[in-house]
C-alpha cells in the first residue's frame, strides 16, 4: 500500500476517533483496530519514520 497522508479524525461524537488516510490515492477512514489491514499498514508506515497528524 502506498500511504501518502494519515491524520487522526473524529466526528465530534465521544469515542469516535479513527484515521483519515490517503492510501493508493484514495481517501478512506481507517479504524484503530489491530487486525484491520489498513491500520496494520499505517503502523508499518509509522515504524518507517512517518507521522500521523493530530486531529483538528
Amino acid at each position, binding site marked *: 500500500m502506498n500511504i501518502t497522508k494519515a491524520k487522526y479524525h*473524529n*466526528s465530534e461524537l465521544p469515542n469516535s476517533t*479513527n484515521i483519515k488516510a490517503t492510501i493508493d490515492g484514495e481517501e*478512506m*477512514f481507517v479504524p*484503530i483496530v489491530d*487486525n484491520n489491514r*489498513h491500520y496494520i499498514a499505517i503502523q508499518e508506515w509509522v515504524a518507517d519514520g512517518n507521522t500521523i497528524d493530530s486531529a483538528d
Partner: protein
Amino acid sequence: MSNARKLAANLPTDGQLGNRNLIINGAMKVAQRGTSSTTTNGFGTVDRFRIWHGAVGNVATNQYNSGSNAVDGISNYSFRAQATNTASLAAGSDAHIRYVVEDKDIQNIGLTNPNNNFTLSFYVKCSNAGQSSVGLASGNFSSATYVVPFTIASADTWQRVELTFPGNAALSNVSSGFGLRIYWDLGIGTNYQTSTHNQWITSGNPFAAAGNLQIIGVYDRWLQITGVQLEVGSEVTPFEHEPYTVTLAKCQRYYYRMDGNKTTWMYPINTNNANGYRRGSIHFPVTMRTTPTATAGIVHSGGTSGVDGGVWIGPDCVGVYVNGINGETDYAYVNALEVDAEL
C-alpha cells in the same frame, strides 16, 4: 454411461460431503469491485484474489468471461492477469496472485500435524507453455513455505492442476487472521526462488520455483486461473459448486460496496439553527471479519461530512455524519459505501 452416473462415480463417499471447498469464490463469479482493473497491488476485480505486481511491471486484471472457451462444467469466469508493459525482473521483485485462507476457516485441516494432508486443485490457462509453481506460506509468512512446480503443457489450453501438501508444526504461526497463504507465480525474483520442492522450508521464505515462466514484465503474456479448491485430505474431488448468493455472502465478510442507491437518508439532530447535525447508520448485509476501513459517498448541501470511528463502527455497521448543516433547509444522504475487512 450417463452424465449423472459419471458425476455420481466421482463424488466422495466418505469424509466431509458438503462445504468441502475452503476457498471462497474459487469459481471467480463474484467481482464486487468491477470486472477489470489496472490496480497493480491490491484487490481490483475478483473478490478474495489479490494481484501483486511487486515492482516488476504493469498489469491488467479481469474477471474474464471465457464464454464458450470456459472450463467445461466449472464457471464462465476466471481471474486473469495480463502484462501491459515490458520490464526486467529484479532479484527482489515478487509478482503474484495471492489468496489467504482465514485462520478460522482452516482449523479442520489440522495444519500442524505432519500426518494430515490437504489438497489444492485449480484450472490454469496461460499464453505460453512452460513451468510455473504454486507457493504456500504460513499465516505469518515467515515461519514456513512450500513450493510445488507444475508444467503448463500447452499454450491457451485449460488444464487442471492437483497438488497435495502435508501439515507442518510451523503452520501454527497464524497472524491477524491469516491462516494460510497461497501464491501463484507471475514473476518472482531469485531472492524468493528455490530448487527445493515438495517439502516445507523453514528459512529464507522462498515461495516460487526457479525456472518459472515470467508473466508480468513480458508484454502481453497472461495467466488465468479458476475452479480453485482447497480441501481436507489427499483425494481430489470435483469442484464444489454453490449458488451465487452463497458465494456473494461469503465474500461480503471481507468486502462490501453499495453504489448509487440514495436510500440511506441521514436523520437530523439539532435542527433549530444553522449549525445542526445529521447522523446515519448503515448496517452491512453480512457481519464482516473485523471492523472495516470505510469510504462513503455522502451527499449534503452544507457542512462537513465523514465516517465515524471508535465505538460508532464495527463488523456489523458504520456510522456517518454531517456537521455544521442547516437544520431546516439542507439535506444529506449516503449514495455510496465501500467497506473493506480483507486479509
